[in-house]
């Protein structure tokens, strides 16, 4: 009886671990896509609506998908609190809080940090150009991430389960 329960526990735990790893591979492309659309939203706000950056960030936070809206909400909060920080500092601080809880890689972080350098630092056309460039770089990262996800998600989903089964079989 205890043996069966233990075996079930091991299998479930290993399977869940596999699903967790698979999930991290599957989430990264989603987040990159959400970031792309959020950045193009920000570009629209800046170029066509000429919204002040604080409000633009708030708009983007409200209209983007939930997995990235936290980043823009934090950047907005940092700017709106009027503690004397520049847009770049607010953006960096938001990134530092957002990045550990996201599924992004260091290369994606570098692209986003590049966005912070130009936010509110030059005229509209220049910012738009940089935002479009960041979008483009995120798009290439996204292609790579999707390729990686396609190969790894199924692998890890099954690998966890089979590793659990193997452990049980070896220990029985």
């Amino acid at each position, binding site marked *: 009886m205890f043996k069966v329960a233990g075996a079930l526990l091991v299998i479930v735990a290993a399977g869940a671990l596999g699903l967790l790893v698979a999930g991290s591979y599957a989430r990264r492309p989603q987040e990159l896509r959400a970031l792309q659309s959020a950045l193009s939203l920000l570009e629209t706000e800046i170029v066509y609506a000429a919204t002040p950056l604080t409000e633009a960030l708030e708009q983007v936070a409200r209209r983007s998908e939930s997995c990235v809206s936290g980043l823009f909400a934090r950047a907005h909060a940092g700017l709106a609190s009027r503690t004397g920080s520049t847009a770049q500092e607010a953006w960096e601080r938001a990134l530092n809080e957002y990045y550990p809880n996201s599924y992004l890689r260091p290369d994606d972080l570098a692209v986003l940090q590049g966005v912070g350098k130009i936010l509110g630092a030059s005229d509209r056309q220049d910012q738009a150009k940089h935002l479009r460039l960041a979008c483009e770089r995120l798009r290439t990262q996204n292609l790579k991430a999707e390729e990686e996800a396609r190969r790894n998600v199924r692998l890890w989903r099954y690998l966890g389960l089979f590793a659990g089964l*193997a452990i049980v*079989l070896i220990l*029985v």
Partner: protein
Amino acid sequence: MGTNIDLIFKIAGVGILTAVLHALLKHAGKEEYAHLATLAGVAIILMWVIDLLGNLFDQVKTVFRLF
């Protein structure tokens, strides 16, 4: 006899698992890990049957009086 039947079923289980793992890893483009998994399966089963193999060779020796 009972333990031997159990052992055969365990070996069959590990065999099926290694076959699936090999196919899975190969499909994901990690051929070196696929071969490693197969090798691990062989090693684990060898650990289980090694003393049985020793018994077998001992018996062969006694049958042919090779002492």
